[in-house]
């Protein structure tokens, strides 16, 4: 107790010096927490934007669909037969079908390439939660469409206006429909918000002349289970013969041709869908680690300097304590405690301030619309609302890290302090 009391009072002897050292630790811990919070939030944001609006947790889709999906006409669609439904039912809590296809949207005199999203009105919300959706007007019925804010802006469309969609059917013939706009949406994913058009699966089927779909998407209880469920799904569907081969863009009534999974149809998870984006996040994470390493390095040097100065200033006091019978180990402990206390003060405040900020933005997201708009980031699947990622273990971990750095930095000057011979130290000026 005496040691703790002395160490605490000692760090208050030079308040300014202690405050400055603690401030550096504070900034290191703060940057660590805030950086982690933002990068974690950004990763989560990228994942969630992609998962909740397009990727789902698991999808069965034509192989290499992201490239194939831009082809015109769409290739590799597969039928949702009762046999397939039987295979997949019970795999996860929810599934739905979607068809993505590229089309020309025409509103005289402009033409724009848009991405059509054909969705199942009943099942879609089970897999793609709509809490982030903003819709002006209504969701589309069997004979209308819903355009994204981006499309609406380019065409200067309002609810009730009409838009012509022109695309090729699965057989390669042109087809077009003039459809009223029931609503204008944003789903928080610029990939859909800039060039997307939602319409019911049935209506899209009429346009492409097929009731086949490009995606069968699943939502599992927690996305961490996706890989496991996907593996099970792959095994289960290995022998399933109901997928159509590539080029088999036959009309509704043509029978499905036997094919194999992974040659023409693949099972992918959200991890596959967001891999490249997450790799980018990892680079960010590394940059942050480097920055924090430098900051905490500076903090360590600051603390080492503080303890070193304290040791030299208090040489006579150390000598006296040693003369009075204090062992070297205890003198060392006293100085290490002083370093630790500076770390605790700085680290605690840094953790509190950082955690408060990150917690706040994890509840009240930052609206990034002004940052994204017009910056060429329209195709980057990131929600316009950035929720930071708050976690107590991360804040506590950063705090502990700050304290550990402080203690480590105190070791060398503390050892120096104990090396002085008591006979000389007691008379030091």
């Amino acid at each position, binding site marked *: 107790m*005496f040691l703790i*009391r*002395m160490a605490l*009072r*000692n760090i*208050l*002897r030079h308040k300014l010096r202690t405050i400055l050292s603690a401030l550096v630790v504070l900034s290191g811990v703060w940057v660590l927490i805030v950086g982690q919070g933002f990068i974690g939030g950004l990763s989560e944001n990228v994942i969630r934007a992609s998962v909740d609006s397009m990727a789902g947790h698991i999808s069965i889709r034509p192989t290499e669909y992201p490239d194939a999906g831009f082809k015109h006409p769409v290739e590799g669609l597969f039928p949702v037969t009762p046999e397939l439904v039987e295979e997949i039912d019970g795999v996860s809590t929810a599934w739905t079908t979607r068809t993505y296809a590229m089309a020309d949207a025409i509103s005289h005199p402009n033409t724009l390439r848009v991405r059509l999203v054909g969705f199942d009105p009943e099942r879609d919300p089970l897999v793609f939660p709509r809490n982030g959706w903003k819709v002006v007007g209504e969701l589309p019925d069997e004979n209308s469409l819903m355009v994204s804010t981006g499309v609406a802006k380019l065409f200067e469309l309002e609810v009730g206006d009409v838009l012509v969609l022109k695309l090729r059917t699965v057989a390669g013939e042109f087809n077009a429909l003039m459809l009223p706009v029931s609503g204008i949406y944003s789903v928080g994913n610029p990939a859909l918000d800039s060039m997307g058009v939602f319409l019911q699966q049935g209506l899209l089927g009429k346009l492409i002349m097929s009731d086949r779909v490009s995606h069968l998407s699943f939502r599992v209880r927690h996305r961490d289970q996706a890989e496991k469920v996907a593996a099970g799904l792959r095994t289960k569907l290995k022998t399933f013969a109901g997928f159509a081969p590539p080029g088999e863009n036959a009309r509704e009534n043509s029978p499905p041709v036997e094919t194999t999974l992974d040659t023409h149809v693949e099972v992918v998870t959200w991890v596959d869908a967001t891999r490249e984006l997450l790799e980018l996040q990892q680079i960010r994470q590394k940059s942050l680690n480097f920055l924090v390493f430098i900051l905490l390095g500076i903090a360590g040097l600051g603390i080492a300097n503080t303890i070193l100065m304290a040791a030299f200033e208090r040489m*006579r*006091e150390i*000598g*006296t*304590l*040693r*003369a*009075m*019978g*204090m*062992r*070297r*180990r205890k003198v060392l402990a006293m100085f290490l405690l002083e370093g630790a206390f500076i770390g605790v003060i700085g680290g605690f405040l840094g953790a509190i301030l950082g955690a408060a900020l990150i917690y706040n933005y994890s509840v009240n997201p930052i609206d990034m619309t002004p940052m994204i708009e017009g910056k060429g980031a329209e195709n980057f699947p990131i929600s316009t609302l950035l929720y930071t990622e708050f976690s107590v273990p991360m804040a506590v971990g950063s705090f502990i890290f700050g304290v550990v750095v402080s203690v480590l930095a105190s070791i060398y000057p503390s050892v120096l302090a104990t090396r002085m*011979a*008591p*006979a000389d130290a*007691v*008379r030091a000026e």
Partner: protein
Amino acid sequence: MTICSLHNASKTYGRDAAMVWALRNINLEFQAGEFAALSGPSGSGKTTALNLIGCLDKPTDGWVEVEGTNISGMSKSRLADLRGAKIGFIFQSFNLVPVLSALENVELALQLAGETKNRRERASALLMEVGLGDMLKRRPNQLSGGQQQRVAIARALVKEPALIIADEPTANLDSKTGRAILELMREMNKAKGTTFVFSTHDPMVMEFANRVVQLRDGEIESDVRKNSGEDL
């Protein structure tokens, strides 16, 4: 009873041509209850002798015994324990721990001596005895030089050591305060029978001492016990 003794003790600093002899082949014994002064001009070896007697340092040659135990082979930690239990120190510049109150400074000595019982009570009782009963909570910077030295005396005495080493205890005090401090130390020496060895070149201190050891160039010039007037 011999409390502390130096046997053929020498202390040198530096090497070869630069070697300086601080003490040369000294033999000294201090008996229980002595109030002895080590005197001599600067560089005579007073401080070095005091360091050896107080187990703060070891001789280059010869050996030191405390209560009959040779300390030569003791590790630094054991020496620290020995000092903590058996030797009290009073310094010229008082050397109180500035972040501790008068009471805590005295208590600390008990803590370092490994005492666990009634530390606070014993420390405050002794502070009362040295006339600081109403200043227990004061920090050293709120005390005068004389008061600080009284705290230092209480700190040295509280663990009831066999020996108290006082390094020029009155050098930083005016003569009136210095006298009062010496009277207090003498009083404690008589009342508790604690052995005091101090270094000084203050004639007043020597006047109080019942034994004066004169050192010059690291050697004993004279060793006089006053009560018998005998030159040892």
